[in-house]
């Protein structure tokens, strides 16, 4: 296959909350397909199920029904321990609230995923070296030994991005990455994500802000737990051999 392969492929993903008589379906048969190297936004109003979808795509929870192939592997039936390993190896998270460990330096925060890496264990020197490289990549080479409270919001989010990339994941999931930032810092973070995308990183961004979503290649709009529309945002579209989704 000359084209990029599927990183995310879901088949009829359903998530039902609640027990007994009262059951709420947060997701109701979601089929999406995201290819390697893509930059995709998932949008939707409150209650549309976008957080639930993000949690499933991020292997933080499992679907009630349906299948989820991450990087070609069916992860919908894995247990907690296996899911933890998948998160460690294949997924990098960027959160709205940065979620760095307090009173821990930027460098230590970035090396944290190595701690739980059983597949490719690294020595302390190797992890520190890689973490320094990543921090330089996100433009924080001079602030490696600063703790989160000594950094601005934008800088903290850069640390989080470096941490997300440290284990060479197959994709990065960004949950409202600019939600806590002022416009300028938000733009900087978006530019950084673009830069990563151009270097080949697959990015799935969850957002409610159309102005942010427009910077991605396409937007998957969720309504009531189902894929409503898929919008192509034009300029960043990459050529793929097959287009498995229905373009509007």
């Amino acid at each position, binding site marked *: 296959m000359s084209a990029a392969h599927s990183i995310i492929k879901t088949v009829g993903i359903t998530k039902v909350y609640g027990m007994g008589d009262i059951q709420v379906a947060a997701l109701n048969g979601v089929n999406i397909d995201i290819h390697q190297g893509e930059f995709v936004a998932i949008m939707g109003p409150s209650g549309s199920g976008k957080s639930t979808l993000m*949690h499933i795509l*991020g292997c*933080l*929870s499992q679907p009630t029904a349906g299948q989820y192939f991450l990087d070609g592997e069916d992860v919908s039936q894995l247990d*907690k*321990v296996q899911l*933890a*390993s998948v*998160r*460690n*190896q294949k997924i990098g*998270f960027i*959160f709205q609230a940065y*979620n*760095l*460990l*307090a*009173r*821990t330096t930027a460098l230590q925060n970035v090396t*944290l*995923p190595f*701690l*739980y*890496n059983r597949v490719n264990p690294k020595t302390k020197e190797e992890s520190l070296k890689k973490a320094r490289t990543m921090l330089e990549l996100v433009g924080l080479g001079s602030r490696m030994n600063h703790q989160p409270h000594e950094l601005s919001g934008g800088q903290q989010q850069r640390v989080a991005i470096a*941490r997300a990339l440290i*284990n060479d994941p197959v994709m990065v999931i960004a949950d409202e990455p600019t939600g806590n930032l002022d416009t300028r810092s938000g733009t900087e973070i978006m530019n950084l994500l673009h830069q990563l995308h151009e270097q080949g990183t697959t990015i799935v961004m969850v957002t409610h802000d159309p102005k942010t979503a427009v910077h991605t290649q396409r937007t998957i709009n969720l309504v009531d737990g189902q894929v409503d529309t898929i919008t192509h945002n034009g300029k960043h579209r990459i050529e793929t051999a097959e287009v498995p989704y229905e373009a509007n």
Partner: protein
Amino acid sequence: MKPTEALTIAWEAVLKNKIRSLLTMLGIIIGVSAVIIMVAISAGTEATIQDQITSLGSNLVFVQSSMMRGGPGQAQQGGLVYDDAAAIEDGVTGVTAVVVEQNSSETIKYGDVTLEDVEILGTTVGFPSVRDMEISDGRYFNDQEIERKSKVVVLGYSLAQELFGETNPIGQYVKIGNTKQAVIGVFTEKGLVGNTDFDSRAYLPISVVFQKFTPSQFARFMGDSVRMIYVEVDPDANLDNIITQIELLLVKRHDVTLDSADFSVTTQQDIISTQESTTAAFRSLLAWVAGVSLIVGGIGIMNIMLVSVTERTREIGIRQSIGATPNDIRIQFLTEALLLSIIGGLIGVLVGVGGAYIFGALSDMRTVISVSSILLAFGSSAIVGAFFGYYPADQASKLDPIEALRYE
């Protein structure tokens, strides 16, 4: 996660919350140091008793008046008499020395100093050697002085201090009861042996005590009664055999049966055994009390760890999101609890050893710090940490990553 990494994380967590860590450890510190100090005190008490009993003199058999014959309303009679001592010395083989003692209580005066209820001990020439006492000044009385009922007295160390202070007591006269007695000697300090204070007594020829301080209306018929006969035996002799000989002799002399005997025969070994069982009970009581405080310390650790898990829910969520398994989280918090209890245990050992040492130095009580109590206390602190740390760690490992990440 490697054990060294778990330890590093735990160490950093302990350092990040220094005050809280210290408070958490406090229970363990108190528990461990209490175990060490209490065991040290009881071991010290035991050792002191052992030493004192040994210092009574070796190979002693104690023959003691245990009951007076005669019913209610009758004057006291019976018990040991002075002549029994001579009979034992002549009639029992393996005896090297026999010493008699009879006591009373009198007021002693010297100059302006008046001491009431001072113990007066009438005894014989062999007393210093049998009871392992030494004369520091002057001399002890001799057989002639006992024979002649000489008005002489040898003072215990502290009694001499109280009466004379800086003055040299030798050659001075003290008034005991209504009798003037010449001080001829002072004993060196001996201290408490069991409940007996050897230093606060006045030692007189036994004949003087019989005549002046414990006259008996039956003395004419029965002989002068005595409280105690010390029988020093040949170290190579069979002790049980000698005891039997003494018992048979006295039963015959007193015309009683062994069951109704008016005397009792004990050995140093009997005294040691009694004391040992008392101190063993004391020690195990202390150990239990200290053990309970260790458990309370453990519950303290569990409390703080539960609070800590709640407080760090977000951190747990972050770690889970980047790939920590439930077991990783469990190990992290268990290691932290263990580390807290082990550091607490180490500090407790330092405080305990230091406390026992200072306590021993500042008080009259002797303390003996035993390695086994240190190991026991430290070992239990680690076990307590593991036991009480498991539940909070397990709670942490069961957190749902999404809920944990949402936690504010």
